[in-house]
């Protein structure tokens, strides 16, 4: 029997890429397509070559790789001829949220208003210039307004001494999070500047965790992935 595995690979949640010997992409699955929004082809090809087995075959290496919010704990590189080489990255498991979201207590909110109010609050204390790029058509969704406001305040405060602060708010197309067995869209708020304070990172994490918001704290950036609970 001839089995076609391609669609299984296509819809695998772990990124899979097939390169030619010149580093051209011959095939990539859905997960890899999203990943390429955050990492260059060249970088992944270099990794593929670095971790390739010495002879024809497959080699799995445990390592820690992270691109933006994607974290991988291992990769498998394999080749059976001189023309094609494959890279498969294994998603690190996301930490299960410790608290249950009490969505019935949440109030439907226009996130843009909350964000603007927090920016106004930030501007009462700081003279920094903010550039805001927001999607005004984001649907209203349910959130704990008070907790989320605290999170926004702390997040913005981390940039109190930064220059050129860029804030963007957008829907992450094609990405979802599962909350109580429901597929829920994600809104991403990202704040990028030339630097930031990290003194309240733990508080930011705790507040984010409370609303099941995934937060990514980097040296120049904070990203919040907010579940769009309807």
């Amino acid at each position, binding site marked *: 029997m001839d089995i076609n595995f391609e669609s299984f690979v296509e819809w695998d949640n772990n990124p899979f890429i097939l390169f030619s010997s010149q580093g051209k992409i011959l095939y990539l699955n859905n997960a890899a397509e999203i990943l390429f929004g955050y990492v260059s082809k060249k970088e992944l090809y270099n990794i593929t070559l670095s971790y390739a087995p010495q002879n024809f075959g497959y080699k799995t290496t445990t390592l820690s790789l992270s691109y933006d919010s994607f974290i991988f704990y291992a990769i498998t590189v394999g080749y059976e001829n001189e023309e094609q080489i494959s890279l498969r990255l294994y998603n690190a498991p996301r930490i299960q949220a410790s608290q249950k979201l009490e969505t019935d207590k949440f109030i439907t*909110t226009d996130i843009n*208003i909350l964000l603007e*109010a*927090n920016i106004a609050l930030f501007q*009462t204390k700081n003279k920094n210039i903010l550039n805001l790029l927001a999607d005004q058509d984001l649907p209203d969704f349910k959130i704990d*307004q008070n907790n989320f406001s605290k999170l926004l305040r702390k997040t913005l405060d981390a940039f109190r001494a930064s220059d050129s602060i860029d804030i963007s708010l957008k829907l992450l197309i094609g990405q979802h999070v599962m909350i109580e067995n429901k597929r829920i869209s994600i809104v991403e708020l990202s704040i990028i500047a030339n630097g930031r304070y990290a003194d309240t990172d733990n508080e930011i994490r705790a507040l984010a965790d409370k609303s099941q918001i995934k937060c990514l704290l980097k040296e120049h950036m904070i990203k919040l992935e907010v579940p769009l609970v309807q």
Partner: protein
Amino acid sequence: METFFTTSDQIQHIIKSFNLTKTLFVSSIIIGEAHTGKKTLARYLFPDTPLVSGINDEEVKEALEKYDELIIADFEKLSNPNSLNFNNKRIIATANYLGNATLIDDLFAFIYTMPPLKDRPEDVNYLKTLFVREACSTLMIDEETIDISNIPLNLTMNNKSLKKSVFLDLVKLSMETPEIENIIYQYILKHLDGNDGYREHLGLYERPLIKAGLKKYGSQLQLSQVLGINRNTLRKKIYEHHID
């Protein structure tokens, strides 16, 4: 509706932020020195919201159970703010000082700082005009006849001291000998006691006399002639009253 006048950028941002969150269920607090207009601002933004004072813990607790929207003034006076539950309520609090920073940080989503009057020169001018009008109407003085640019302004206690300095200055303008005597009379009636009363209260007369005289005549020599006392006596009195 009551208006709130300000040219301060900082306060404009506070107003903007409040206007945006007016319909949301979030907790906010305005912190700033006494008499800077915190309560007036809260009232201006939320004219129909019930208001309670932190002086009375029980009253605050009861109001929290009853209303979804509440102004809590004098928040720093609450003896047990830990026990308050602001979940899904619209709370606007005002406080004269921060107090327990961690607690405030935990309880409130929006923490605003009200700048003191000394940082808001244009607001001072506006308020001064407002108080002068009020004082003129109360004291029945014709506004046209006074020069308000010379009023010395005291901003140490923000609006309170500003208002007081305007009123005092205008009262002074309208005072003649009988009123001045009457004021000293009332003052002495209240404060006279002990066994050195004459010397203690002499300053009430001598200090302004010498200060004004020096300002008017410049030199001690000239002033002693105008006052008709010996130059050494004048010098002694200047020393006694610590006049520079």
